C-alpha cells in the first residue's frame, strides 16, 4: 500500500485555474491525488497529515532563466548546489542556459545535461541549447535534433545573435519544429564594451555606458523578423519601458512573442552601482528609476509575461575586480519569490497574478506539464508564508556563489517547504543557520 501524505490547513493558490481557497492537498506516489477545500483534518488513518498552519500552497516555481556553472565552472555552481538553491527558493523546475564550458550546442551536450540533471534530486532541470555553434553567431546548430534530444529552447545566452541574415534563417527554420527562440535584448555591437546604463551615473563613474538604443534596437530587429517568419520568440530579461512598449505593440499585431524580466529590474536602479559594486553588474544593465517603475507596472499589467531569476553565479574571484573586469551576474534563485512578492505587497498585483508569472506561464511557454496544482499532476509545490518578514543574508544562500546585491535587504515572504514529486526537498525548519 502506498503512503499518502496530506497537507492541510493551507491557502491553496493555483494561478492557472484562479483557485484561491482554504483546503489541502493529498499526495500519493509523487502525484497530487486530490486537492480542494474538502480536504481537512478528517482523513483516513493511513494518511500522514501535515498541518501547514494557514501558509500558502502553490505550484513550485518554474524559473526559465538560469545559468549554471556545470559543466566547466563547477567552482561557481554545480547541479547539486543549483538544485539546493532552487529548492530553498521554492523553485521546482529550471531551464538552464547553454553558455557553459563546453557550450551546449550538440546532442551529446544536451544528453549530458539530461543525465546529470536526473541525478539532481531537488529540482527538475531542462536544458536550452545554443542557437549557433559555440554561440559564435556564425553557424546554425542542429535545432531539430537538439529539440528531439530534449532542448526546450534555443539561445546564445549573453551573445544575442546580431547577424540579422542568420537570425532570419534560424527563425524560419525553427518554424518547421515550432521551436522556442530566446534572445537577450541587447544589440551586440551597440552594447559592446558597455558596463552599465548610459547616463549621468556612468558619466560620473567613468564607466562606459550601454544606451537605451542598444536594447530597443535589438528588440525591434527581433520582433520584425519574428513577424516576418512567424517564429516563436521570447525576449528577456527586458529592462526598459521602451522594450515593453515595442513587444506589446507586436503582440497586438499577432507576433508570437513573449517576454520576461527579473526582479533586479524592478527592485534596483543604476544608482545601486554606487561605489563600483560589482554585484550590480548584469546584462542588460540596471536602468534608471523611471524604467524600474515602468518594468514593475508592466509586470503588474501583464505586458511582461514572466518573472525569471536570471540566476548567474559568480565566485569571489570573478567579482572582486575592477567593475570593467568583473563578470556579470546576480544569483537569484533563492530571492526570486520574496523579491517578486514586493509587487503584491505594494498592492500592484494579486498574489495569484504574481505567482502566475513564475508558475504556469513559463511552463506553458516551455511546453512543460508542470506549474499547476491539478489532480494527477506531479506533486511539485511550494509552501510559503507570503507575509513573513526576513532579511536576505548572503552567507545563508545555498548557491555555491554568493553574488547577491541584496545582502541585508529586508523582504517579505518566506519559503517554508518545497515539495518535488511528493518529496520534501526543502524544509526551512531544518535549516540550522536560517536567518
Amino acid at each position, binding site marked *: 500500500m502506498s503512503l499518502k501524505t496530506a497537507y492541510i490547513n493551507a491557502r491553496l493558490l493555483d494561478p492557472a485555474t484562479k483557485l484561491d481557497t482554504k483546503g489541502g492537498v493529498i499526495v500519493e506516489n509523487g502525484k497530487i491525488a486530490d486537492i480542494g477545500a474538502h480536504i481537512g483534518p478528517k482523513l483516513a488513518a493511513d494518511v500522514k497529515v501535515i498541518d501547514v498552519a494557514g501558509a500558502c500552497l502553490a505550484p513550485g516555481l518554474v524559473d526559465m532563466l538560469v545559468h549554471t556553472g556545470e559543466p566547466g565552472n563547477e567552482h561557481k555552481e554545480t547541479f547539486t548546489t543549483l538544485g539546493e538553491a532552487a529548492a530553498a527558493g521554492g523553485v521546482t523546475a529550471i531551464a538552464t542556459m547553454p553558455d557553459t564550458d563546453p557550450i551546449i550546442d550538440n546532442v551529446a551536450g544536451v544528453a549530458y545535461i539530461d543525465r546529470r540533471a536526473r541525478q539532481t534530486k531537488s529540482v527538475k532541470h531542462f536544458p536550452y541549447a545554443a542557437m549557433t555553434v559555440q554561440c559564435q553567431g556564425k553557424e546554425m546548430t542542429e535545432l531539430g535534433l537538439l529539440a528531439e534530444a530534449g532542448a526546450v529552447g534555443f539561445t546564445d545566452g549573453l551573445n544575442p545573435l546580431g547577424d540579422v541574415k542568420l537570425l532570419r534563417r534560424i527563425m524560419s527554420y525553427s518554424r518547421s519544429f515550432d521551436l522556442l527562440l530566446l534572445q537577450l535584448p541587447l544589440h551586440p555591437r551597440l552594447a559592446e564594451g558597455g558596463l552599465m546604463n548610459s547616463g549621468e551615473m*556612468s*558619466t*560620473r563613474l*567613468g564607466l562606459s555606458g550601454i*544606451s537605451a538604443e542598444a536594447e530597443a534596437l535589438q528588440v525591434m530587429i527581433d520582433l520584425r523578423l519574428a513577424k516576418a517568419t512567424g517564429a516563436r520568440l521570447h525576449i528577456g530579461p527586458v529592462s526598459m519601458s521602451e522594450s515593453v512598449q515595442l513587444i506589446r505593440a507586436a503582440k497586438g499585431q499577432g507576433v508570437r512573442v513573449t517576454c520576461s524580466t527579473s526582479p533586479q529590474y524592478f527592485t534596483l536602479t543604476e544608482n545601486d552601482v554606487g561605489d*563600483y559594486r560589482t554585484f550590480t553588474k548584469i546584462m542588460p544593465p540596471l536602468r534608471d528609476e523611471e524604467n524600474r517603475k515602468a518594468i514593475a507596472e508592466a509586470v503588474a499589467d501583464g505586458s511582461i509575461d514572466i518573472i525569471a531569476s536570471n540566476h548567474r553565479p559568480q565566485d569571489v*574571484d570573478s567579482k572582486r*575586480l*575592477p567593475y*570593467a573586469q568583473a563578470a556579470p551576474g546576480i544569483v537569484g534563485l533563492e530571492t526570486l519569490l520574496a523579491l517578486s512578492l514586493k509587487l503584491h505587497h505594494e498592492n500592484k498585483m494579486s498574489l495569484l497574478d504574481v505567482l502566475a508569472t513564475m508558475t504556469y506561464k513559463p511552463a506553458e511557454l516551455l511546453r512543460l506539464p508542470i506549474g499547476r496544482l491539478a489532480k494527477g499532476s506531479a506533486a511539485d509545490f511550494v509552501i510559503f508564508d507570503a507575509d513573513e518578514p526576513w532579511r536576505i543574508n548572503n552567507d545563508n544562500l545555498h548557491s555555491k556563489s554568493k553574488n547577491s546585491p541584496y545582502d541585508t535587504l529586508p523582504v517579505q515572504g518566506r519559503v517554508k517547504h518545497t515539495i518535488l514529486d511528493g518529496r520534501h526537498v526543502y524544509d526551512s525548519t531544518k535549516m540550522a543557520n536560517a536567518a
Partner: protein
Amino acid sequence: MLLNNRHLLGIAELSPQEINTILDLADKYVDLNRETERKGQRLKGRTVVNLFFEVSTRTRGSFELAAKRLGADCINMNADGTSTRKGETLIDTAMTLNAMHIDVLVVRHSASGAVKLLADKVNCAVINAGDGQHEHPTQALLDALVMRRRTKKLEGLNVAICGDILHSRVARSNIFLLNKLGARVRVVAPLTLLPKDIERLGCEVHTRMETGVRDADIIMMLRIQNERMEGSFVPSAREYYHFFGLDRAKLNLAKPDALIMHPGPMNRGVEIDSEVADDIHRSLILNQVEFGVAVRMACLDLLTRQLMSSQRLQDAAQ
C-alpha cells in the same frame, strides 16, 4: 586642517575647504621648489610607492620628485609587466604591498574604480593618479592651483574644457573641482566625444568651438585619447583640428587675456596649434607641469599627517 579621508581617490568626495587646504599648502611648496635647497624632511622615514598599471612619464615623475623632495623613500613599480601578467589580481597586489608596511601608495589603473577597490584593502594612504575614465584628482588640483595663482580666484571664472571629454578623467575631476569652487564650466566637443548627461555634472555643453570658447577666461584643451578609442569617433585628425583644434583665430573669440591650459602630452596640430601652445603670455602649460610637483607634495604631506594622526589614535586606543 587635515583631510577627512585617509585616501585621495577623487575630487567628488572633497569639500571646498579641503580643496583650499591642499591648494594653500601647495602654494607654499611652489615657492619651496623654486629655491636652491629643495629638499625637506617632512616625510623622512616614510615610504611612497608609485604603482602604475598604465604607462606614464609626467605624473609618475612628478609624484616621485614630490616624494623625494619631502624626504621620503620612493620606489616605482610598473605593475603592468610583472606580477599581474603572472595572474596576480589587483587585490593580491594590494595585499602584498600592504605587507611591506608602506605609507602612501600612488596608483594609476586603466579601469575606473580600480583604485578605490585597491584602497579598500590596504592600511596605507592611497592617491588616485588616474583611474580609467573616472578621476585624476591631483591633475585637477594642480590645474586649480595654476588658475588661482594667475587669476587670484576661481569663483566666477569661465572655463572652457575642450576636446575628448568622453575618455577624459581630467575633465571629470576638473568639472567637479571648478563647480565646487564656484567657476562656470563649459565643455566643448563633437557629440561623439561627450558622455551622456554630462550637463548634469554642472556644465554647459557646446559642440562648436566658436560658441564654446566665446568670452572664456581659461581654455583647457584635452588630448585626443587615441589609445582609449575603439573605432572612429571623428573623421580625421585634419578635420578635428579644423573644427576643434585651438588656433589663434579660435583663441581670439575668448577674452583678450584668456589663458590656455593642457594637461599634456599635447598632440600639436591635432587639438592645439604650436603657436598657441608656446605663447609665453597666454599658455600656462609649463606652469601646470611645475605646479604638479607642488600639489603632489601637498597631497603627500596632508595624507601622511592624516595617517600619523589615525595611527596615534590607534596607539592611544591600545
